[in-house]
């Protein structure tokens, strides 16, 4: 019951702040001739302010007894609050008797300072002590990742380098030395293992039974969901990492390399190494994990001038996509240009009738190329030899070219190839079995689909 009244503290505190500040400002203003008429109103302001300050102190005391708060911060806040109440009463009592402006002004100024400090301390208790300054710090954690980049991730400690920073940025504001909502502290090994009111915060080896994971995985609108709806949420990667850590025994000493790493954790660790936020990493798995240097803008400009569009496949990478659909020529200068970006080229559309076997020699060292479109070009079987070492290639489109089964032989080392489009080429049905044998993992699309003619295509339903 008492704690119920205590919970009104955050509401009541705004009364003394507002009333006393106004009172003090009026005192200072009333020293000038223009505002002298304010004087009769001042005592009642001070009295109301002082009374509301007392009410705030009482509710505040009840709230602190409720238990979720502890530490120096509460005690500082408490004594500052009491001094505000006392000083405001003193000011009210002496206001009618003392006529010296200097004394009244000094007390009023001191009161303003005290109120500000008390208010700030109270705010720090509610929102966390770094709430005010967080936006000023560079690399604010609010929208981005809670875990800072880790230079050599396999050698790093799981708890110290990943889990602790995660707790620090997402949980400490309510669950550490300053505040212990639900009696839970997450800032030290002993406290974490002890857990909160409900216990079982972390069940070693069983993430699904751990209260911590259960709360995090509740729907956002659930009252018990953590972090609270209005606070920054854990990303999918962070949740996966936490689950992985608990499932593997929630060890506080081990390094990343000591724990078994399934495929999804490997991608997350790779992203930690680079410091990308989780949301991006999941979708960006199409990009090689190793980053390349950016291509000079002057080079890009040269492409644009030649009618070729070249641009990064996404804003967070230097890998490039190029489209030659309007290329004005395919001369030696253009081939040299291609060579200058051979490391960065990820997707390439060379769909232009100016492209021939000669052109393909320019891309033979584009080692990172994953998608290549050579539709409707003049290439022949001999040209495909230039592609033989492009082992990152996943999708190759040869629609409308003179390629035959003989040329496909050059592709046999492309172990990552998944899609091969050979519609309208020299490849016949008889070749399919051989290609399937050569490239067993590839989904081969020979196209030439037909939509059969049926009666409905040409007839119309008439009204009876």
């Amino acid at each position: 019951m008492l704690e119920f009244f205590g919970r009104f503290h955050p509401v009541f505190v705004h009364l003394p702040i507002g009333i006393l500040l106004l009172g003090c400002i009026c005192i200072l203003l009333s020293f000038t001739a223009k505002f002298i008429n304010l004087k009769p109103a001042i005592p009642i302001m001070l009295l109301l302010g002082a009374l509301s300050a007392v009410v705030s102190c009482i509710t505040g005391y009840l709230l602190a007894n409720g238990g979720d708060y502890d530490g120096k911060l509460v005690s500082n806040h408490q004594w500052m609050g009491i001094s505000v109440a006392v000083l405001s009463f003193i000011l009210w009592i002496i206001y009618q008797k003392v006529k010296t402006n200097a004394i009244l002004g000094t007390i009023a100024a001191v009161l303003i300072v005290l109120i500000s400090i008390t208010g700030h301390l109270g705010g720090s208790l509610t929102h966390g002590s770094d709430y005010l300054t967080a936006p000023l710090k560079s690399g604010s954690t609010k929208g981005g990742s809670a875990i800072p980049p880790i230079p050599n991730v396999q050698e790093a400690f799981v708890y110290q380098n990943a889990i602790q920073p995660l707790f620090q940025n997402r949980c400490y504001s309510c669950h550490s030395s300053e505040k212990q909502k639900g009696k839970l502290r997450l800032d030290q090994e002993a406290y974490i293992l002890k857990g909160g009111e409900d216990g079982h915060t972390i069940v070693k080896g069983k993430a699904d039974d751990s209260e911590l994971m259960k709360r995090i995985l509740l729907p956002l609108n659930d009252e018990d969901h953590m972090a609270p709806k209005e606070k920054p949420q854990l990303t999918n990667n962070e949740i996966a990492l936490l689950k992985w850590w608990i499932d593997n025994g929630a060890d506080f000493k081990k390094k990343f390399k000591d724990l078994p790493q399934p495929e999804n954790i490997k991608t997350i660790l790779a992203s930690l190494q680079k410091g990308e936020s989780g949301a991006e990493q999941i979708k960006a798995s199409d990009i090689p994990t190793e980053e390349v240097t950016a291509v000079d803008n002057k080079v890009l400009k040269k492409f644009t001038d030649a009618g070729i569009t070249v641009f990064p496949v996404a804003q967070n990478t230097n890998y490039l996509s190029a489209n030659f659909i309007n290329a004005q020529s395919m001369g030696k200068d253009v081939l040299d240009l291609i060579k200058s970006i051979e490391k960065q080229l990820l997707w390439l559309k060379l769909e232009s009738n100016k492209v021939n076997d000669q052109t393909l020699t320019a891309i033979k060292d584009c080692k990172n190329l994953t998608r290549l479109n050579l539709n409707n070009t003049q290439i022949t079987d001999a040209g495909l030899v230039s592609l033989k070492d492009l082992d990152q290639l996943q999708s190759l489109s040869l629609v409308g070219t003179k390629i035959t089964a003989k040329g496909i032989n050059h592709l046999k080392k492309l172990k990552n190839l998944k899609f091969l489009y050979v519609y309208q080429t020299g490849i016949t049905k008889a070749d399919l079995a051989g290609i399937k044998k050569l490239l067993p993992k590839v989904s081969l699309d020979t196209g030439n689909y037909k939509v059969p003619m049926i009666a409905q295509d040409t007839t119309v339903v008439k009204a009876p």
Partner: protein
Amino acid sequence: MTRDELNAHRLIKEAHEANARLHSRRHFLKESAMGLGALAMGSLLGSCGNLFSSPQTKIAYDPAHPLLPKSPPIVGKARSVIYLHMAGAPSQLELFDFKPELMKMDGQDCPPSLLAGKKFAFITGVPKMLRPQANFARYGQSGALVSDNLPHFSTMVDEVSFLKAVKTDQFNHAPAQLLVHTGSPRLGRPSMGSWVTYGLGSENQNLPGYVVLTSGGSFPDAGKSVWGSGFLPSVYQGVQCRSEGDPVLFIKDPDGMSRDLRKASIEAINKANEQQYQEYNDPEILSRIAQYEMAYRMQISAPEVMNINDEPAYIHEMYGTQPGKACFANNVLLARKLVEKGVRYVQLFDWGWDAHGDNPNNSLNIGLKNKCRTIDRPITALLLDLKQRGLLEETLVVWGGEFGRTPMMENRNGIQNPFKGRDHHTEAFTIWMAGGGVKKGFTHGETDEIGYSAVSGKVDAFDIQATILNQLGFDHEQFTYPFQGRPFRLTDVAGKVISEIVA
């Protein structure tokens, strides 16, 4: 001087003085102090803007090259979008959402629980329930239900993700179409294609990045606003092309105007515009210069790309085109050609799907069946053709209307319509997507046993917009444009990516 003259003299003098006061430096300073202060304040606050705003997607808008390709924030699965909109709202109950329970209820009065507190476009009083006016079967490995109205498309279900519980809050065509394409049922917001071309530019500088094609004999009810650019720079509005005759009107040089002369005149105009730009620094002038240059390049490339006649005969047969006529099949073939050439967003509208049952062409068993016959072959051919060219993986195809149709037969003004028809329905309808990184052979969402409302997997227009942007590499919550003092989004304050259908 008479008294009147004196007064008139005084009045004139006073007017002069008042006028002079309005132009004095003293007056300017006095009256504008507040405004200047606010300006200064604004720029001060602006400089600490990052204190208050969340990280937003940066779009490098270059007015001189507004359509140059730009990178999305994250790697997108799709590079282009073909949106097939069946204007008038096709009946989900005769195409994809099979409800055997409706057969039993056929002809019975609609239960009052479905009518209480509801408002319909035309239904008044108590309508009768109406059984499905088509036969259904399961197709493909996914076992998706398709009616016999779409025999060709039924062979494609294993390429498609169905959204069976789409909901809207607009039951009139124009606002509902605006909501689907601009994120607001009212006029003035940029369309999805405008957002996409603003964010990504286009990979072909000789063609517009956002092309609109219409068929069915009429524009969509929402008019051209449904492909407008709203507050985005006007260069991003949809360019409506015709599917017969010149693709863009007046694109040919008139007789006697040689190509050289055209070039010279455009250079002269651009020179004048550049001078104007030096003087005023208005970026819209640069935009205008870029538009003139693109129009000049388009004169060569557009007629070539827009001409479907040079496609081989078997392709024409596959799509079921009608050369020389304006029809949906021609537009679909054109859409594939445009996407192949690097056009970012192709929007098709086919008008005439409003099956109320007030006349035979507006009925479920005559008009709707005939409309289905005009799209069945082309959409099937489109998916197959994109697939065999290796383009389906990177092209998102979306098919849908602006709302659904009621499980009840329409009784306009309380009188049953002469033909089988259904009224506008907002609670549940079907949209499907294919290619562009969505799941193959998948169905998301379910309606109740009579197809009246969503039971699970409910999505709305904002969710679909969020998903389309997601497939292109954008976070719809961070893809904004500053207008009237605040950042605007396509999805306004709503929308959630339908992650269930993302492959």
